[in-house]
């Protein structure tokens, strides 16, 4: 019976969200969505919300849930949302009922080192969104989670029990970013030197009995792309490097994007791209810090990334930046950040890409702050003051791929990386106060100040071809979120907030 039911569900649903950004390419595209579409999404409602007991740390709270179906639990076959919390919690939630199936709290002695209390950059605890592996030989699924003491926990999704003993994959409180999985190898990135941790890319083979930790260090200020590294078809992991100098002779790759691959037991930097104005980017703290989205295009594999400067770069994964590593396939004009601000403006987080039914390839970026007055996309929806999503068509011009702006969304309060599903773009303004410097205090990036000044997130659904608003959650979400994201599968859209609530939106009756 369970098998039959599971088979039924696969036929009806068939969509998962096993990793941050939806897949190892970090496209934020849910290609298997069939329930929600641009005609019915206006009827979306809050299906349920669940208060979790996760304690926020600094501004971090909950990460985007991972979504998996057909899980054989003791309570039956379930579609499960795995929700990770900063305070070393992992919750398995029955998405049909919005109830917790199991909870795992990672226990360990309080590490000797942590970030400065009040510093939003370095919260203690579990900072990386976990990743779910492919089906094991027995059909079970394993979720890999990196706890705040730097250990990988390999848990059975069905019950939260350890599949293998935990093993070390980083420093305690080292602020790792979303885990990614390519074949047998787990990847993460670290930044901001939290608790003294080096800023670098990390890899470990799950099946290696020694669990040798492999690292690639670009000697920069931090690899803080929201969804960590994205991994191309050849197994090269790409991650932005944050602030820093560019000195290729000394293997210093700040303010750029590195591609590293596991070869001969080591994680080696294979390629890199550094914008030609990297000195300017560093001078004004306009970090390259956006996890790229990787996608196929006309026989090539391309990727898009961006920075706080507010340009989008189009690169070829086989030769990022050309011979001099500084020549992108295409670079957009400034979309925003005329003020040259390092805090509440520019592109933050990650990118998105999808292909429509006509074969058109799209690339999307979020940004914070006002749009640039010189940026005039063909379709826009009023003045953008606080942030928006911009959609480009990836097209060829004179034999070269380019990004042609198609539309810019309505204003959103700090627009975050969008997710695309079945012709609908799901986007949200996080409602977070992102101010780090003040006229009277100077640099005072202090969590209590920002938490107090934050408002609430708003979820939007947009027509993916035009950017037209189809749905808004209005005031239904009561809190903001910081460095989180959306997940979409099987007619449901999930967003978690600072106050520990996971919201599930969908069509009424689909519960």
């Amino acid at each position, binding site marked *: 019976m369970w098998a039959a039911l599971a088979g039924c569900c696969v036929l009806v649903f068939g969509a998962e969200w096993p990793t941050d950004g939806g897949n190892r390419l970090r496209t934020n595209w849910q290609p298997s969505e069939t329930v929600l579409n641009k005609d019915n999404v206006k009827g979306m409602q809050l299906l349920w919300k669940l208060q979790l007991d996760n304690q926020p740390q600094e501004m971090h709270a909950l990460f985007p849930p991972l979504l998996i179906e057909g899980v054989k639990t003791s309570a039956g076959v379930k579609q499960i949302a795995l929700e990770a919390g900063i305070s070393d919690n992992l919750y398995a939630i029955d998405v049909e009922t919005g109830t917790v199936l199991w909870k795992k709290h990672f226990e360990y002695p309080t590490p000797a080192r942590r970030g400065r209390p009040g510093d939003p950059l370095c919260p203690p605890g579990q900072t990386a969104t976990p990743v779910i592996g492919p089906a094991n030989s027995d059909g079970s699924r394993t979720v890999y989670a990196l706890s705040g003491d730097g250990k990988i926990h390999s848990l059975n999704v069905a019950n939260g029990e350890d599949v293998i003993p935990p093993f070390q994959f980083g420093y305690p409180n080292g602020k790792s970013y979303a885990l990614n999985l390519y074949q047998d190898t787990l990847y993460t990135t670290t930044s901001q030197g939290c608790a003294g941790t080096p800023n670098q890319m990390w890899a470990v083979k799950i099946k290696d009995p020694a669990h040798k930790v492999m690292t690639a260090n670009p000697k920069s200020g931090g690899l803080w792309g929201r969804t960590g590294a994205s991994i191309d078809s050849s197994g090269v992991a790409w991650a932005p490097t944050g602030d820093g100098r560019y000195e290729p002779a000394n293997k210093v790759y700040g303010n750029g994007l590195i591609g590293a691959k596991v070869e001969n037991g080591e994680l080696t930097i294979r390629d890199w791209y550094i914008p030609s104005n990297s000195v300017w980017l560093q001078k004004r703290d306009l970090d390259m810090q956006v996890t790229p989205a990787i996608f196929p295009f006309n026989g090539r594999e391309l990727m898009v990334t961006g920075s706080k400067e507010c340009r989008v770069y189009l690169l070829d994964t086989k030769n990022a930046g050309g011979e001099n590593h500084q020549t992108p396939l295409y670079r957009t004009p400034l979309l925003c950040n005329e003020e040259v601000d390092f*805090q509440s403006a520019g592109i933050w987080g990650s990118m998105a890409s999808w292909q429509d039914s006509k074969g058109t390839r799209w690339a999307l970026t979020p940004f914070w702050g006002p749009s640039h007055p010189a940026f005039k996309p063909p379709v826009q929806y009023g003045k953008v003051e606080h942030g928006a999503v911009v959609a480009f068509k990836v097209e060829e011009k004179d034999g070269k791929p380019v990004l042609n702006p198609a539309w810019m969304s309505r204003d959103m309060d700090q627009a975050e990386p969008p997710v695309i599903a079945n012709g609908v773009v799901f986007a949200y303004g996080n409602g977070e106060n992102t101010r780090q410097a003040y*006229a009277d205090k100077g640099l005072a990036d202090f969590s209590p100040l920002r938490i107090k000044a934050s408002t609430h997130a708003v979820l939007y659904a947009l027509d993916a071809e035009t950017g037209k608003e189809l749905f808004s959650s209005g005031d239904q979400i009561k809190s903001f979120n910081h460095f989180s994201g959306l997940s979409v599968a099987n007619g449901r859209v999930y967003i978690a907030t600072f106050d520990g609530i996971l919201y599930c939106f969908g069509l009424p009756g689909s519960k």
Partner: protein
Amino acid sequence: MKRVYALASVSLASATLLTGQGRPLDWPFFGGDAQRSGWQKSDLRITKENVKDFQLVLKHKLETKSGERSLTPPVVIGNLISYKGFKELAFVQGSSGHIWALDADINRIFWQKQLASKNAGCPGGAMGTPTLTPPTNFAAARPRPTPPGTQSPGIPASPAATPVTASRPSVLGSTSFGSPRPAFAVSKDGRLHVLNTSTGDDLLEPIAFLPQNSRASSLTIADGVLYTTTTDCSGKAGAVWAIDLNGEEKKVSSYTLKGTVPAGLGGIAIGTSGTIYIAGSDGSITALAPKVLTESSKFAGTGKLGSQATPVVFTYKDRDMIVAPTADGRLTLLDPKQMATAAYQTPAIGKIWGGISSWLDTDGTRWIAAPVWGPVSTETKFGIANGPAANGSIVAFKVEEPNGLPVLTSAWISRNLESPEPPVITSGVVFALAAGRKGGHATLYAFDAATGNEMYSTKDAVTQPANLDGVTIANGRVFFTTVDGTLYGFGIHLEI
């Protein structure tokens, strides 16, 4: 596992503080420092090799009154973390009573304000060049972690990244990284304004500081005390002023010059011990105690009023030395411990104008450079000459000890310059501005600091004469202003 972590544990906590071109540099005072050296010690963006590639990188006409000293030269914060982002700001004050903060990278006014004044002050030029609080210290680097699995119970917890904070008055702001740094300026009524560098707002009620109807020279801060000099509107009476910003009282002290007025653009120069040195136009040099400005020693002048340059103080073999001009056109080398007697005097050089500059080259040689208006005296011969210099020049000397005592050895004389201003130096390059006051236009030159050989010139790029108030150098750019109220910046192109 341990091996991997050992390799990986390179802390890069400071990566965000250094640009690819080095740490952002300030130019907080006239002359770049309180010693008035004119030397920007570590501008990595400028080299002898790339100075030929200098170009116009900033030109901004400001709405001020044209004429003599229409604008001060800028003082520069290399990196202000403002509420609108990281900014390199140049602060300029105008004869109109305005002060502007310009984003030096993108040539955009960040803020401007009219300094409130209770009277019109002296007619003519701007008040003294504004000043900034001295540069910040940077937070200590974070300690390296212990590899996972090997933490010892004895390892202390990670520090709270507490910034290095020196004790200093709150009006000067904190020294911690990213803290606000006020700017200081004097309005025409002599009141001191303490300004928020992010907004231009007065942080305090303007403080009564200088007498009304006086002209101030450059403002300078040392050890929480702000100094300047004044002359009255007629230019015949002069004084040195100090305001102690360390306490609530903001006590003002002064020293009145007798029979002379302050010489040169910088007003005073300050020794490493805090001693204030004021040069009179009679060639006298008076040493004053810091803050209280009581006279401690003096090098007597000649009685003839002719000196027109601020002295420079530099460290030579672990002690301060002073070089100042005499009223009859020589350079005097003084040991502050024996002020009454010159340690050395050059033969006659000429009309030394504005200020003296000094730097140390990579070989450890101490150099002195001075602008000369008009021809150089035949009494002084230079080993290297760069063509006729009938209208003016920069002359350079080495501090040497041929007989165990320091002397100034003439080294080179530049090409001809019309009304040169005190030069600024970095990376082995001397930048000299010919103000072009006799119906011409300003021209900025770059000279090889070892030979005076011309390496670059702005030629006819500037169409107006320069204000006679100094040159600024910071972060790959050389700034000056012209009489029509324009701020110019020439330097290495920064791709934006």
